[in-house]
C-alpha cells in the first residue's frame, strides 16, 4: 500500500464522522508520511508500520461518535455509539441489545403510564366541572367534594411522574455513555499494545 492508497482507504472508512474531525485525523497521517519520506523511508514501508487503516478507523470513529453522543443527547447518537463499540469487538451485540431494549421499554412504559394518569386526572376534573352542563353525556359516580381533589391529585401525580421519568431517562443516558467510554479506553489501549 502506498501513501495515496492508505489515506484513501482511511478517508473512506471514516467518512461518516464530522468533516472537521476527519480532516484533523487525515492531517496527522499525511504529516506522518511526509516526515517519514523526508527521513528517507519508502511510502510502502511507512504504510506497513502504521498498520491496518481499518483498526485506526475503528478507534477514531468510536471515540469520535461517542464524543458526539456526549455532546448532543439523542437516541440515534447513543445507538451509533453502541454499534461503533460493538465494531471494536468489545462486547457481543446480543448481550448489550437485550438489556438496552428492555430498558428503553421500561422507560417508554413509564412515560405512557404517567401520561395516562395525567389525562385521567384532567378528565375527572373537567367532568366534574362540566357535569351540570352536559348532564346527559357525563356521569361521575362521586360527589364533587371527592372528585375535584381526586382530579387535581391525579393530574399532579401524573405530571410529577413525567418529570421523574424524564430524569430517569437522562440518568440512564449518562450511565450508558460512561459505560461505553470506559470500554473504549480499555479497548483502545489493548489494540495499541498489540
Amino acid at each position, binding site marked *: 500500500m502506498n501513501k495515496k492508497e492508505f489515506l484513501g482507504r482511511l478517508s473512506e472508512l471514516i467518512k461518516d464522522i464530522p468533516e472537521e474531525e476527519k480532516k*484533523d*485525523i487525515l*492531517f*496527522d*497521517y499525511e*504529516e*506522518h508520511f*511526509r*516526515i*517519514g519520506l*523526508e527521513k528517507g523511508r519508502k511510502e510502502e514501508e511507512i504504510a506497513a*508500520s*502504521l*498498520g*491496518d*487503516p481499518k*483498526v*485506526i478507523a475503528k*478507534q*477514531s470513529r468510536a*471515540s469520535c461518535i461517542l*464524543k458526539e453522543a456526549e455532546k448532543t443527547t439523542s437516541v440515534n447518537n447513543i445507538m451509533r455509539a453502541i454499534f461503533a463499540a460493538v465494531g471494536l469487538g468489545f462486547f457481543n451485540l446480543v448481550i448489550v441489545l437485550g438489556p438496552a431494549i428492555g430498558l428503553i421499554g421500561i422507560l417508554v412504559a413509564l412515560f405512557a403510564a404517567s401520561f395516562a394518569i395525567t389525562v385521567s386526572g384532567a378528565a375527572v376534573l373537567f367532568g366534574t366541572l362540566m357535569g351540570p352542563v352536559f348532564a346527559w353525556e357525563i356521569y361521575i359516580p362521586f360527589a364533587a367534594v371527592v372528585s375535584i381533589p381526586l382530579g387535581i391529585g391525579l393530574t399532579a401525580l401524573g405530571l410529577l411522574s413525567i418529570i421523574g421519568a424524564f430524569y430517569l431517562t437522562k440518568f440512564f443516558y449518562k450511565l450508558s455513555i460512561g459505560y461505553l467510554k470506559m470500554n473504549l*479506553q*480499555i479497548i*483502545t*489501549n*489493548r*489494540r*495499541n*499494545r*498489540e
Partner: protein
Amino acid sequence: MNIQFKKGVLELCVLSMLEREVCYGYELVNEISKSISISEGTIYPLLRRLKSEELVTTYLQESQEGPPRKYYKLTELGRKKEEELKKEWFTFVKNVNNFLKGSVKNE
C-alpha cells in the same frame, strides 16, 4: 491485573516522553516503537484522546525542512497524570518482581 494498568502502559510512555520534551507526532511514534512493538498508526488516536482529556495541547510550528508540523506539549494536568502513572508503574513492577522471586524460592 489492574485495568488502569493495561490501558496505562502506552499512555504512560507517551506522557513520559512529552514530559522530557515537546515532540511532533512522527518523533513520538518513532521513539516509542523502538521500545514497544505496536502498530504505529494507533498512537495517533491515543494522542487525540489525550488532547480531548486536556492532558496535552497541540500547536503548529515551522520546521527547517518543510511545512509546519504539529507539536504536542504536556499540560499541567498531563504532568500530574504522568507522575501519578509513573509512580503506579514502579510500585507495580516492584510488587510483581517480589512475587516472582518468592515463587521461585517456593519451587
